[in-house]
């Protein structure tokens, strides 16, 4: 009898430890694995449509093997091409780079780096994950419904997304997209509120705001952006649901399609565009800021040198976050909104370049006269600086309304945002995984595979996205299924092929990461307590995960986190828990 009870108790333990866990470290792992799973699916989709784009109309039996009647005789169906593009974008932006990135590292690092036993509300944190998982499952389920998944582009502009007559994906598929994204927004809000409250209330003794690592600053600002902007997407989606299901006219007016006039009156799709991009643009920084935070920390640790301009780094992240709320109109220069607004948004958009430039120069100065250890995470962080420069600079072209006229919605845009947002964010995420893997899985990753992964990824990533700028200057619109109807694009055929080859190699390169990840998580070498000789608090916790993070008292913090190679110290790092010596300056807190 008692043995039975014990057994029962044990089972419950398992369930609550691994499944319905309220421990932030376990939730971080759940976000990471779910996010990466979605990310791999999204990447696979892109290789499938790259086959069509690189070799239009050519039959690839593998497409039929994987996708069945989406690719009859191995040739992708045009409707399903749009479906793939749409779901690829949705998954990558929201599921991988928002939930996967913020969800993993905010959850893992906020309590560990500020010195808290857990999140302010473990229960809400668990709910946040379960909403995210449900939302992921619904999104994947929508792939199989009648008419296919949402196909109106990840921006789901109505009327295309509102009318099943316009595109088959706007039937059940679109409904599920809206349901899935609504759950996603709930997940993001629960997470975001939790992060903000935790950072404000649960810092350990001595952890002033100006002693927080830049990672925490980045997560803090990201959470604020998310909490302020995601509800707007929710309202946009809600009104779209009304238009779709209850024949309201928020976004629709004066429409004749499939042989009948629909009787909508007085709505405007531009309203949707405003609401969508009011989230959509801050979203870019919701994706990017955590990556910038992670890389700041990683570059400083691996350069054995304090991050240059700690306060300027915080200030520029704040500036970027603030400006990100007043630039959304640059996605709409050609939407037909008043040209005066176009002028205003040009002005605010180009301002973003200033804090961005400050960040880049601060990164460079941090590397200058450092003592650089090239761990895989350091390589990815350096890769991030490179992509942030390359992609950021072309943003100066796109943000200028007069120049946007001719490259709006062309491949130039695709190249730009994939480099500055996609690559920078995913590089930051990879860097974070390599760096904090010991905190996630108590084991180390193999660095040789890490090197191979980095070099294949950066070479192929540039190989994919740099040539797209040339397609943009040739005037090639994005989201075309086939360009061979246009003699003016004949010359770009070889560009398309080269891009597709790089994309396939890049996808294969990620298998290296996957292998390293799975292998190391299970059989990797045991991690020491502080493998990178880092200053921050997470490395003072025991290697094995324990509930509450520290076995005894939470350590007190006495200094900023970037005392690397400080003169007069024996070691080239001074953990935050070491008290200041007499007369020693606390670097983050004086000028």
């Amino acid at each position, binding site marked *: 009898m008692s043995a039975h009870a014990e057994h029962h108790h044990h089972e419950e333990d398992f369930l609550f430890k691994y499944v319905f866990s309220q421990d932030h470290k376990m939730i971080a792992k759940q976000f990471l694995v779910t996010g990466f799973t979605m990310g791999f699916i999204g990447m696979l989709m892109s290789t499938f449509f790259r086959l069509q784009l690189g070799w239009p109309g050519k039959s690839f039996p593998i497409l039929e093997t994987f996708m069945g009647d989406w690719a009859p005789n191995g040739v992708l169906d045009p409707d399903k091409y749009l479906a793939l593009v749409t779901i690829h974008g949705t998954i990558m932006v929201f599921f991988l780079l928002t939930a996967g990135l913020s969800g993993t590292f905010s959850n893992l690092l906020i309590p560990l780096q500020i010195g808290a036993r857990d999140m302010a509300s473990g229960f809400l944190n668990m709910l946040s994950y379960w909403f995210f998982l449900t939302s992921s499952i619904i999104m994947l389920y929508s792939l199989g419904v009648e008419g296919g998944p949402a196909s109106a582009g990840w921006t789901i502009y109505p009327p295309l997304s509102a009318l099943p007559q316009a595109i088959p994906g706007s039937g059940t598929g679109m409904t599920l997209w809206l349901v899935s994204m609504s759950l996603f927004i709930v997940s993001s809000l629960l997470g975001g509120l939790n992060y903000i409250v935790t950072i404000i209330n649960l810092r350990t003794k001595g952890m002033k705001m100006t002693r927080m690592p830049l990672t925490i600053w980045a997560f803090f600002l990201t959470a604020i952006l998310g909490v302020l902007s995601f509800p707007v997407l929710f309202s946009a989606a809600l009104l779209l649901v009304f238009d779709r299901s209850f024949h309201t006219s928020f976004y629709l007016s004066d429409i004749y399609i499939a042989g009948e006039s629909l009787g909508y009156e007085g709505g*405007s799709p531009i309203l949707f565009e405003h609401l969508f991009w009011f989230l959509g643009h801050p979203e870019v920084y919701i994706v990017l800021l955590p990556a910038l935070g992670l890389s700041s920390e990683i570059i400083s640790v691996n350069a054995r040198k304090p991050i240059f301009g700690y306060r300027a780094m915080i200030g520029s992240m704040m500036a970027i976050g603030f400006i990100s709320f007043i630039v959304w109109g640059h996605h709409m220069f050609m939407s037909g909104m008043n040209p005066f607004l176009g002028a205003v948004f040009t002005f605010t958009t180009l301002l973003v370049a200033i804090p961005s430039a400050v960040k880049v120069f601060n990164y460079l100065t941090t590397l200058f006269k450092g003592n650089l250890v*090239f761990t895989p995470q350091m390589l990815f962080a350096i890769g991030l600086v490179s992509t942030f420069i390359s992609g950021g600079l072309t943003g100066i072209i796109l943000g200028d309304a007069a120049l946007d006229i001719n490259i709006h919605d062309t491949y130039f845009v695709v190249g730009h945002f994939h480099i500055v947002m996609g690559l920078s964010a995913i590089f930051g995420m990879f860097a974070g995984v390599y760096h904090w893997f010991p905190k996630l899985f108590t084991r180390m990753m193999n660095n040789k595979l890490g090197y191979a992964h980095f070099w294949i990824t950066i070479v192929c990533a540039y190989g994919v996205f*740099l040539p797209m700028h040339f397609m943009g200057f040739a005037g090639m619109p994005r989201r075309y299924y086939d360009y061979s109807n246009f003699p003016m694009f004949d010359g770009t055929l070889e560009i398309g092929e080269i891009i597709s080859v790089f994309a396939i190699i890049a996808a294969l390169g990620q298998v290296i990461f996957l292998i390293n990840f799975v292998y190391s998580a299970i059989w990797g070498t045991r991690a020491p307590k502080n*493998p990178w000789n880092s200053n921050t608090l997470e490395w003072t916790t025991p290697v094995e995960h324990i509930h509450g993070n520290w076995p005894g008292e939470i350590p007190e913090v006495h200094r900023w986190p970037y005392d690397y190679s400080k003169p007069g110290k024996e070691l080239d790092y001074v953990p935050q828990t070491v008290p200041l010596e007499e007369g020693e300056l606390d670097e983050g807190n004086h000028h």
Partner: protein
Amino acid sequence: MTKFLIIVTGILGLAVVFQILRTFQLAAKLRGKNDWEVTDHENKTQALMMPIFMVFFFGFVIWQIMRWGHLSLPESASIHGEETDMLLSVTWWIITPVFFITHILLFYFCYKFVYNKDRRADFYPHNNKLEMLWTIVPTIVLTCLIIYGLVTWNKIMTPIAEDTDHVLIELYGKQFDWTARYAGEDMRFGDANTRRIEGANVLGIDSADVNAADDKIVKGEFHLPVNKPVQFVFRSQDIIHSAYMPHFRAQMNCVPGMKTQFNFVPKYTTAEMREKVGNPEFDYLVLCNKICGAAHYNMQIKIVVESQEDYDKWLAEQATFIASNEVAPVQPEKPAVIEAEAAAPTLENDSTKTE
């Protein structure tokens, strides 16, 4: 079956790879090392990879410019396009050096300051002067760019004054083709609403509207006179399309329920442009540039730019709305909401109205 084989091969492959990794890990342990620690040799190799990568990276950029530079759109075929092209060149001249210089610094620092256990990094947490420098310099440069850009933008987006001699043309998008409508002698379009779409009246024009009588509707291609301002008005029948005329550096979305506009002056006739690009088959095109469904990728219409005489001759051959629509049932009641200012000859406030 194929799927099954792929899966089995994948699993077996993984097992093999895992075993190899295990071997390496154990071998490292036997040598008293960890497979995750960065050795001196690895550090130096990675540091050396940085400038090597940089050379290939820059080489790739330059190779692309040489190989694909000529694919860029030819010289602008519109007057305002000269200005945007100039603005683009200026912007390139600013960002290209920044691209190269920052990348050179990035990769050079990585190469130069590789880890050395006998050396310490410079403790250099901040420098207000430097930080001010790289806040202020970008601010100045961007201020200039912003002003330059805004002046250009405002010039382009100002509608043509009513008293200027110009062509008034409506471009109407629907899944998946374009229709053009000329305003005719009166320079006014007849009222149109999707509820009146019926039979040959594909634009839903109100035949009772006197302004509609001389409107001319054309499909397949439309013509423009060279060196004369063209005021475009855009409408859509069903979903958002975008009228993209890359050779004229012109684009505007076509939004159901509202009118949008753009104007430009064509500079070269089709024949002249054919000569310039050395392609006797060259044609100006309108492409759809907003995702609009399965055949989005093939939604186009040809533009023919020709001399005023040829244009007049071609236009005279096109039937007026009244002639092509003999059986015109007069609609008794006017749908009230949308029509109010639809007939106004200028469209200045149209886009603000919907904000």
